[in-house]
């Protein structure tokens, strides 16, 4: 009763707790916050204090002095550092809620479909200790499909590929439920790592994660162009491994595409395995309608083309791929009476 009264005064929210970005959807207001999932923590005389969260903390990533650690509390779509994740969620709730003392919202958080019960429990508990009145979980591919506007409740198969920061989720959905899902721990982060190791191997240049991410967004591509052209060029700055001095090299889109071949190949493989495991009737529907890409990874240049050539299916990118999961989770929040059966809870 009391918690219901508290809930009346607070705005319920849906959180897409992603490895790379966290999006918060508030009931009746839409997406109100989209920030990188980064927290900077200072160690002041043995006591840990949050210095910055989100965009500000991301600027600090890899540039911190000894007493500050900027870290990403999520890895591979699940919580790696429980306390930091809790601080981050608490910060976002406070930022969205101006009345801080009374805030006790219902929170819907999405979890990767391949996450274990322990990982789900960690997400639920961190949201609870961050001040939630009640926590419900939704599987990411379902949220992505709802957010992309796919007719998930129809008796017809829809295939969604959500390429996030930490995981890639491939799922076949029909009649409001997941028929088959596969989650591989490859996403934007693995692409960044691939770029870092490529630069080290081919250019003897050490670069940080933010730089790698910037290159990927700028000139990243899933495949080299057919006509052998180098594509746009970018300067990359880092530290030379041979003589230890900072240096700048020029890389082409073709080179980046080459470096990304491995993570892209893993994603293609995951989609193919999912297609192999799809029941034939649903496979027929997918041939008809195609595959929808969501998540930040869907923005990688020519990724849809690569998947199209590999599968022979109509692979298309959803509208607002970065926001699909948050929008779908938000819709589950808004219509939780009707969409209640896509929500789960660990208790």
């Amino acid at each position, binding site marked *: 009763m009391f918690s219901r009264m508290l809930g009346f005064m607070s705005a319920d929210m849906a959180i897409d707790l992603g490895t790379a970005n966290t999006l918060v959807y508030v009931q009746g207001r839409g997406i109100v916050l989209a920030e990188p999932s980064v927290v900077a923590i200072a160690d002041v005389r043995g006591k840990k204090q949050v210095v910055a969260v989100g965009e500000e903390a991301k600027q600090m990533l890899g540039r911190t002095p000894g007493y500050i650690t900027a870290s990403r509390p999520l890895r591979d779509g699940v919580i790696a550092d429980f306390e930091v994740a809790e601080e981050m969620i608490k910060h976002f709730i406070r930022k969205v809620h101006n009345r801080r003392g009374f805030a006790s919202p219902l929170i819907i958080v999405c979890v990767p479909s391949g996450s274990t019960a322990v990982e789900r429990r960690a997400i639920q508990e961190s949201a609870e200790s961050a001040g939630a009145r009640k926590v419900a979980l939704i599987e990411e591919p379902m949220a992505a499909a*709802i957010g992309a506007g*796919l007719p998930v409740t129809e008796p017809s198969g829809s295939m969604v590929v959500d390429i996030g920061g930490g995981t890639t989720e491939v799922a076949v959905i029909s009649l*409001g439920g997941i028929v088959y899902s596969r989650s591989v721990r490859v996403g934007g982060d693995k692409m960044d790592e691939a770029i870092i190791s490529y630069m080290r191997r081919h250019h003897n240049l050490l670069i940080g994660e933010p730089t790698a991410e910037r290159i990927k967004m700028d000139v990243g591509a899933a495949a080299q162009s057919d006509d052998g052209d180098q594509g746009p060029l970018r300067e990359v700055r880092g530290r030379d491994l041979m003589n230890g001095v900072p240096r700048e090299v020029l890389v082409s889109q073709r080179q980046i595409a080459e470096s990304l071949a491995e993570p892209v190949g893993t994603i293609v493989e995951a989609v193919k395995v999912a297609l192999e495991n799809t029941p034939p009737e649903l496979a027929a529907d997918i041939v008809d309608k195609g595959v*929808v890409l969501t998540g930040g990874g869907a923005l990688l240049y020519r990724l849809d083309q690569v998947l*199209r050539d590999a599968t022979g299916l109509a692979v298309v*990118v959803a509208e607002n791929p970065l926001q699909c999961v948050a929008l779908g989770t938000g819709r589950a929040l808004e219509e939780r009476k009707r969409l209640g059966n896509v929500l789960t809870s660990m208790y």
Partner: protein
Amino acid sequence: MSPAVQPKEVAPIAPRTGGDLRAARERVGWGLDDLAHSLHIRPSYLEALEAGRINELPGNAYALAFLRSYATILGLDPNDVVRRFKAEAAQVNARTDLVFPVPVPERAVPAGAVVLLGVALAVGAYAGWYRLSGEGQLPAEANVQVPTRLASLVEQAPRTTITAPTPAAAPAPAAPPVQEAEAPPAPLISPGSAAAAVPPAPPDQPRIVLRASADAWLQVRDRSGQVLLSRTLHAGETWDVPPRPNLLLTTGNAGGTDLLVDGVTTGPLGGNGAVRRDLPLEPDQIKDGKLLATSLRPSPQ
């Protein structure tokens, strides 16, 4: 343009953007099949897109995504094409309606209806019982309240109770009922003493009045079983017996009940707390003292 021209087909919803796409494709020199081959989108969907018949596409989300792919491969700005398409066809902005399959409820009758029916039955049963069991009481009380015929007798009744014992030379007016109760055989019906004071009531008026000298549960019914009175009369309360033949009286406290026949008291019908059943309420028999005599025989105490 008008529906009459294309009677079989649904009117196109976004023909202009689709026409632009077709023009752009033809400028490049690609056929629909070339495009379908490279995008792996079925040619019929691309054709529907060009003609603006978005109802033929598998869904709004797919329509916009196909459009985006189409625009991208032609080198057009996909965002611009999608924006124009949306401006033309407002219905693609509609959210996909999600209706989850709900299991059919196992019971045919919903629980709410059953509960409602049960409550209605219970109320009906109670109302019926109340009506049937209270039926005898209602006319009896109505009789008491009829003032025109019975008012005189109702007024007489208390008066006679006071006047009747006085000839028996009781010193205190309040004492006589007690004395009478202690000496049951003494106040035999003596027609001479009170009959003069109160003239005999006309035959159609009640001749018998029940009077309670102590709290007593009384029931009056006729031989057919119709109940005229069934309640507790408190001390001093009286009840006029309607002038009907074949009435039977049952009392739960014979010692606290006495009868006034034409204003003459019979005295208590039995010992205190004794139960007497089915006493015939015939004025003449009571006057003769038959009732009292029968009353004394089965007295338990």
